[in-house]
C-alpha cells in the first residue's frame, strides 16, 4: 500500500535531521573550541535510530567527530526513537521526544556530553544578532547552514519524489558554491543518478560556479528569502557555466524550508 503524503513527509524530515543536520557535529568539533573542550578526551559512538529503520552514527574521538550514515558495527550508545515523529521532535525541541537508550543508558557522562554539544550546535545554528557581529562566528554559522543545505539537497534528491524528478532532468556535472573572495566553499557532484558532496573547491574545474558575494546573500538564498533572479542581475550572486544544473539544485534548495526551519 502506498504511504500517505504525511508519512512520506515525516520520513523525509527525519532523514534530513539524521543525514543533513547530524553531520554538522563534524564542523562543530572542527571549528568550535568550546565544543572541543566539552568533548575533551572522551571517546564514544552514538547511534540515532527509529523503529522504521532510519539510522545514523556519530563517532567522537580525539577531540573530533565523524559522521557515519547508517550504523557502525559496535556503538557505545544507541538512542532509539519509537516513531519518526519523536525523532523530529527531539531535533525541533517540541512534543514528546524521549528516546529509549537501548544501549549505553549507564554512560551518563557521555550522554551529558551529547546534550551539551547539541546545545552548542543549536547556538551556532541560531545565533543572536549580537553574536553574528563577530565575524568568526558569522562565518562559522554560514558554513554550518550551507553544509546542512547541501546535504539536505542530496537527501531530497534521493528521497523526495519532486526533487528526484527535478534531478532526473538535470545535466550531470559538478556545482561549486562559494561565498566572498576567500570564504566558505563546498560542492555537489551529480553523476549517474547520484549526488555527492564535499567541502572546499572541487578538484577539477566545476561545471557551474555559484558565487555569493557575501554571507548574508548566501544565507538568504538558501533560506528561500531572496529574489534570486534579481540578485543575479544585481551581481550579488554570480552563476557561470552549466546554468541548468544550478537551476535544478536551486529548485531543490527552495524546497528545504518545507522540511527544515532555516
Amino acid at each position, binding site marked *: 500500500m502506498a504511504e500517505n503524503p504525511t508519512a512520506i513527509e515525516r520520513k523525509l524530515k527525519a532523514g534530513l535531521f539524521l543525514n543533513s543536520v547530524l553531520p554538522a557535529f563534524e564542523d562543530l568539533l572542527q571549528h568550535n573550541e568550546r565544543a572541543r573542550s566539552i568533548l575533551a578526551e572522551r571517546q564514544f559512538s552514538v547511534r540515532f535510530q527509529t523503529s522504521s529503520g532510519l539510522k545514523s552514527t556519530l563517532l567522537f574521538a580525539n577531540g573530533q567527530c565523524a559522521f557515519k550514515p547508517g550504523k557502525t558495527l559496535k556503538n557505545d550508545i544507541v538512542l532509539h526513537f519509537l516513531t519518526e515523529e519523536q525523532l523530529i521532535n527531539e531535533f525541533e525541541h517540541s512534543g514528546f521526544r524521549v528516546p529509549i537508550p537501548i544501549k549505553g543508558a549507564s554512560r551518563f557522562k557521555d550522554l551529558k556530553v551529547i546534550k551539551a554539544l547539541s546545545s552548542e550546535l543549536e547556538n551556532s545554528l541560531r545565533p543572536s544578532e549580537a553574536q553574528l557581529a563577530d565575524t568568526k562566528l558569522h562565518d562559522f554559522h554560514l558554513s554550518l547552514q550551507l553544509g546542512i543545505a547541501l546535504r539536505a539537497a542530496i537527501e531530497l534528491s534521493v528521497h523526495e519524489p519532486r526533487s528526484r524528478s527535478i534531478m532526473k532532468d538535470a545535466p550531470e556535472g559538478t556545482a561549486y558554491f562559494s561565498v566572498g573572495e576567500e570564504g566558505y566553499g563546498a560542492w555537489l557532484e551529480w553523476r549517474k543518478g547520484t549526488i555527492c558532496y564535499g567541502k572546499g573547491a572541487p578538484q577539477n*574545474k566545476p561545471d557551474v560556479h555559484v558565487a555569493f558575494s557575501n554571507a548574508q546573500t548566501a544565507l538568504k538564498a538558501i533560506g528561500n528569502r531572496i529574489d534570486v533572479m534579481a540578485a*543575479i542581475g544585481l551581481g550579488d550572486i554570480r552563476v557561470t557555466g552549466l*546554468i541548468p544544473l544550478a537551476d535544478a539544485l536551486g529548485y531543490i534548495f527552495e524546497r528545504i524550508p518545507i522540511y527544515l526551519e532555516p
Partner: protein
Amino acid sequence: MSPKYVKSMALFQRASAVIPGGIYGHAAPAATVAGAFPYFAERAEGSRYWDVDGNEYIDLMCGYGPILLGYNHPEINAVTAEVQAQGDCFNHPTEYTVQLAERLAQQIEGADWAVFGKNGTDMTSWSIRVAREFTGKKRIAKAKQAYHGVDPWCVPGYGGIIAEDRAQIDSFVWNSVESLHELVKREGENLAAIMITPFHHPNFADSQLPNPDFVTAMNELCEKHGILLILDDVRCGFRLHSNGSHCSFGFNPDLMCYSKALGNGYPISACAGKRALKVAASKCFLTGSFWNAAVPIAAALKTLEIAERENLPKQLKVNGEQLVSGMLALGESHGVPLQSSGPGAMPYVRVAEDTSFHKQQALCAAAVEQGLYLHPHHNWFLSAAHTTGIIEECLQRFEAALKNCKSTLNL
C-alpha cells in the same frame, strides 16, 4: 557589471524593487551572463540596436526571433501608421483579419483555415485542445527539452506547477525512431497529438535537424494511429520556408502554430489547420481582448508580402551560411575550435567540446563587448537586414572578440 552598463544597472535596481526578478523570462540577466550583457534597450534600426547606455550592437537575436525584415522597417511602419490612424482595438475584427486568414490558408502548405492570438503559447495550448476535441483522446506528446510556451503543461521550470498539470503529457527523444515507436506502443491509443518543432533547438545544446527516417516514422505513426501532428513553428516560421517550415523537412502536420516573425515585431500569433479539423476548432473557445487588434494583423500581412517579394528564406540561408563559415574559419585561424548547428537562417555556433559552457559564455560576452550581440546558450536569428556587408562587419567584431578572450578560451 561592466562600466558600459551604468544606466542598465540603475534601471535594473529600480526594476528589481517593483518587478519579481527585475526582468523575467527569456530576457532575464540570469539567462545570459549577468553583468556582461546589457539589460535594457532603447532603440533599433535595421540589424542594429542601442541599449540605454548608448552602446550599439549588431543583433543576431532579432528580439529572440520576431524581427524578420529588420528593426523599424519603413514599409511596416507606413502600413501600421496608416491602420493605427483608423483605430486598432474595436468591438469586432476588421477586414485585415479575414485577409490574413485567407493569405495563410493559401500560403501555408496543408492549411485551409487560420485563427489568431498574440503569443506562441496562445496557439500551442489552443492547438492541443483542438486535437483533443477532434480525436476524443487525452494525451499529448512532445520531444524532451523542447520548448512550446509558458502554460503549465509545457513551461520550463517548476514554479507553480503541480503534477496534475503534466499528467497527460508524454515525451520522446528527438530524432529517435525507437523512442517514437516506444511512445506510440505505450500510449498510441490515448495520444491526441504529438507536438514537434521543425528542428530541435533546445537551450544549452546544439540544434538538431530531423533525420529523414525520423520524419518518415513521425508521419507514418501519426497517420496509422490517428494521432494529430502539431507543428510548433513559432520560432522557425517564415525564416526557413515561405510555405511553413514543415516543407523544409517533409513533416505532414495537421495543425501549424506561428508567431514571432509573422508580424516583424508586432504582437501576433496564428494557428493554421487542415480542413478536417475546422469543425473541432470552431468548438474550442478562443479569445482575448486584444486578439482582433488591426495593427498587428496588418503588420503581418505586410511582413508576409515583403518576405515573399524578397524570397527571404533563401537570402537568410545564404547569409547565415556566410556568417557560420566565416566564424568557423576565424575560430580555426585563432586556434579556438568552434562547432555549428542548425539551419543558416537560425544558426548556433559555440566553442567545441565546452560541455560546461564556460568558454562559450566568455566568447559571447567578449562579442557583446565588441558590439556583436550573440546568445551563449540559445540559437541565433538572421533577418533581411543582415546583408552581406553586415555579415562582414559581424565577422570583424567576432574576430576582435576571439582575440580579446583567447587566453580564457584556452583555459
